[in-house]
């Protein structure tokens, strides 16, 4: 029990000492997770909308695959990404393995189905009605797309933050493709895992607190400006 309390004390000391290594790890984590969430949003939102509002043969099977990918184990995605990026793999010539770029690629693959699935689900239920209504009011394709994005704004933001949450909290994929190299590819989650293995609980707890704080701030912003707003409409 004592080591847990000591761990918390040490954690706050570490946080407020603004240790350069800790700060570097935090910034790299944020950079990798924000980048991958951004790419996942660019890919996942239009595809989710398109899938949601289009009726085609095999849509059910596609949606089942999509929902399966939403819960795909990060370590498996890390493994497949590594196979493709490894020196002997199809993209080995780009020498991306064990770089932040490889981590961004793996996390983008991990987050895209999450973003796409959430947007797809909402677009399937309310998106079709929005498209039909837009059509009856004379909206062309461009206006309809803008209308859909505006109407699905809340859902897109929720998808984005859920995706970011998945990216920043996963350890398996970034560990495999990043390698947890000190000062280069070490991020918060790999740092925690490593310190736990080494028995340095205070350092691990410190990083855990930072990770949870970032998560809390992100969700608070979302709730205050987006979800709270949506709930108000649903009173």
């Amino acid at each position, binding site marked *: 029990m004592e080591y847990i309390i000591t761990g918390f004390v040490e954690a706050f000391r570490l946080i407020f000492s603004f240790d350069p290594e800790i700060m570097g790890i935090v910034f790299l984590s944020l950079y990798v997770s924000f980048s991958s969430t951004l790419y996942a949003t660019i890919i996942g939102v239009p595809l989710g909308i398109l899938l949601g509002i289009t009726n085609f043969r095999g849509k059910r099977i596609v949606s089942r695959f999509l929902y399966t990918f939403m819960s795909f184990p990060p370590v498996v995605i890390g493994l497949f990404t590594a196979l493709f990026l490894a020196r002997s793999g199809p993209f080995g010539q780009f020498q991306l393995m064990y770089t932040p770029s490889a981590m961004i690629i793996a996390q983008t693959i991990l987050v895209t189905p999450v973003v796409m699935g959430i947007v797809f689900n909402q677009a399937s239920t*309310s998106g079709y*009605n*929005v498209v*039909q*209504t837009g*059509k*009856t*009011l*004379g*909206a*062309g394709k461009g*206006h309809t797309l803008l*209308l859909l994005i*505006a*109407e699905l*704004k*809340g859902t897109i933001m929720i998808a984005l933050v859920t995706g970011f949450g998945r990216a920043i909290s996963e350890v398996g994929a970034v560990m495999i493709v990043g390698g947890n190299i000190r000062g280069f590819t070490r991020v918060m989650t790999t740092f925690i895992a490593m310190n736990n293995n080494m028995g340095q609980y205070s350092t691990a707890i410190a990083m855990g607190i930072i990770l949870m704080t970032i998560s809390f701030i992100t969700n608070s912003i979302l709730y205050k400006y987006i979800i709270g707003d949506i709930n108000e*409409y*649903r*009173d």
Partner: protein
Amino acid sequence: MNIETKNLTKTYKDTRVLNLTQECNALFFESGKIHGIIGPNGSGKTTLMKIMAGLISPSDGDVLYDGRPGINDVPKDITYSSHRPTLFSRTVFENIAYPLKIRKRSKAEIHTIVSELLDEFKISAIQTHNAKKLSGGESQKTAMARALSFSPKVLFLDEPTANIDPKSVKLMEAALLKRKKSQGLTIIIITHNLSQAFRICDTLTFLNQGTCLYSGPSHGLIESVDPIIHDFISFNLLKKSDFPIKS
């Protein structure tokens, strides 16, 4: 705008929900009149209306807009509103203004038109409310105001006055009759309210199980000897003389 249907059929998963190939294989909805579509639930009324509004494709047949085939090119000056309208997550004012905005009307013009509609439908007090928070009746009035904002040539209404109070029904009927007279608007309306149908419609089309049993002047329906129509009318009307039937 005149609308004509030719041999329309619609099949969903091996079930034919609309079959206008025998009786009334060519329905004609004349410009500048109010046309009612009536019939029991599941008779194909909404399917027929959605096909004419270009929202779904028929399995076979065609729809002519002023004589021109238009299944793949439905004119933009027709609109459709249902009893469960999809309003956008923005204010009532912005909802009504939406069709005008996408038609690039000036701000002053939009303000004038929307303000007039808000007054006409007595929804000025809720113009800044979010449309997602409205009651059923307010939603239907907002949807109808939005549909009328850009002065369409054809207005399709699927049970526009279902579940709303008599005062609002009167208000909405007055708005339709006014536009029929002043703008020559063609209105095609689905209603379960037979007295409303006789009150405002110039013609009536009666559908049953996807087929048409009657299409013609409103007053002609009451004289029909078809047992299904007869039962439908008897159940809905206490006495024929209770209602102002046009002749």
